[in-house]
C-alpha cells in the first residue's frame, strides 16, 4: 500500500488526471518533463497545477501559471548555484528560493542572504519577505537578520525577529522603520518567541489525495 502511494506520488500525470481539465494535461506533462530533464523539483509544479484545477482556472491560464512556476524554479536554481557554487543545489533550497521570488523578494537580496547562511534558506527568506512586506528597506532588513544570526538566532526564530520589528513599527507614538529596526537590533538576541496556538480541537492533517 505504501509502495503504491509512493509510486503514485512519483507519477505526476497520475496525480493530475481527473484533477485538471483534460485539455491541460499535454501542456502540463510537457512542463513537468522539462523540469525533470533539468533536474528541477517537480512538486511545486504539480501543486500549482492541482491548485489551478481546484480553482477552475481556464486551461490557458492554468498552463501559463505552471510555466511561470517552472521559470521561477530555473531562476531559483541559478541563485542557489551562485550563492553556494561548491555544493549541489538541493530541491528544498530551490523550492524555498522560488517561493521567495514568488513573494516578490529581490533576487540580489536572496543571493546575499543565502551566501551568509549555511542553513536551509526557507525561514530566513520568509523573515526577509515579511520585513519587506512591512515596508522595511530590504538592505536594512537583511542586515538585521544577519545580526540576529550572529547573535545565535536561527531557523524559525528569525521569523520572530520580523514579527518584533513589525510590532515596534506599530507601537503607539509611531516609529520610523529605521527606529524600529534599531530597537529590535538592540533587543537581540532576546526576541519574544511567538506563542503557538492551543486550540480546543485539533485534527490530524488531511492526507494527500484523501
Amino acid at each position, binding site marked *: 500500500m505504501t509502495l503504491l502511494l509512493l509510486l503514485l506520488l512519483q507519477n505526476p500525470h497520475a496525480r493530475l488526471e481527473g484533477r485538471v481539465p483534460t485539455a491541460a494535461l499535454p501542456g502540463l506533462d510537457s512542463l513537468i518533463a522539462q523540469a525533470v530533464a533539468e533536474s528541477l523539483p517537480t512538486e511545486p509544479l504539480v501543486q500549482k497545477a*492541482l491548485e489551478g484545477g481546484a480553482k477552475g482556472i481556464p486551461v490557458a*491560464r492554468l498552463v501559463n501559471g505552471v510555466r511561470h512556476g517552472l521559470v521561477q524554479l530555473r531562476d531559483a536554481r541559478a541563485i542557489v548555484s551562485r550563492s553556494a557554487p561548491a555544493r549541489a543545489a538541493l530541491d528544498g533550497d530551490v523550492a524555498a528560493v522560488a517561493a521567495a521570488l514568488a513573494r516578490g523578494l529581490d533576487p540580489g537580496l536572496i543571493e546575499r542572504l543565502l551566501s551568509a547562511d549555511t542553513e536551509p534558506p526557507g525561514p530566513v527568506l520568509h523573515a526577509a519577505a515579511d520585513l519587506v512586506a512591512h515596508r522595511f528597506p530590504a538592505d536594512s532588513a537583511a542586515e538585521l537578520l544577519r545580526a540576529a544570526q550572529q547573535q545565535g538566532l536561527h531557523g*524559525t526564530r528569525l521569523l520572530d525577529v520580523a514579527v518584533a520589528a513589525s510590532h515596534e513599527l506599530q507601537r503607539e507614538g509611531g516609529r520610523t522603520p529605521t527606529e524600529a529596526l534599531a530597537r529590535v537590533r538592540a533587543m537581540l538576541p532576546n526576541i519574544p518567541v511567538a506563542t503557538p496556538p492551543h486550540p480546543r480541537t485539533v*485534527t*490530524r492533517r488531511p492526507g494527500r489525495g*484523501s
Partner: protein
Amino acid sequence: MTAIDPRVQEALDGERDPTTLPAELREAYARLTAAAALLREPPATSVAERVMAQIRREGPAPRPRANWLLRPVTFRLRPVWTLAVAAAAAAVVFLPFKESATPGAEEGVAQFVGHFPGARSVEVVGSFNDWQRGALALRDEDHDGIWHGAVVLPAGQHEYMFVVDGERWVADPLAGRYVDDGFGAGQQNALLIVRP
C-alpha cells in the same frame, strides 16, 4: 413586641440606679438582665462536637491488613447490567480511537479562523492537502459567523485559501502573509508557515 419602659431602659443602660425603680419594673429589669447574661454565655457543646470529641479520644481506626488483594471478592450483578458492561467493554476494545492530534517533531498545529457571517460552510483547501476539496471543514457551532478549525501539519510553508459555501474562494484575511497565485488574475493565496 412589648415596648420597654424608658426607666427600665435607663437602668439597663447604667443611667439610673435599678434600686430606684418601682417594684413592678424591678421584676422586668431582673428578667432582662438575666436574658442578657444568658446571651453572653458561650453556647453549649453541640451533639456533633461531642461525638467528634469522643472519636478523637478513641484514636484512629486500625489499618486494614494488606491481604485484601488476595481475598476473593464476589460481585452480584443483575443480568441487565451485565449486558451494559459487556457493551461498554466492546466499545473500548473495538471502536476506533480518534487519531492522536499531538504534533510530531517535524509538525506543528495550524489554526484557522475566519469571519463569514451567514455562510453555510467554510473549508480550507491548500498545498497541504493537494488542493483537495472536502478535506478540512471549519466549524461554527454557536452560529456567530466565526468559523474555526485546527490541524496538525508538516513544518514549513503551505499556501491555502478558504472556500465559502463551496464556491467562493477567499484568501484568509488574517493570514498576514500572501503570495500571488500566478494565474494572472492578481489573486493571492494566503501563506502559512508552520513551526515544529
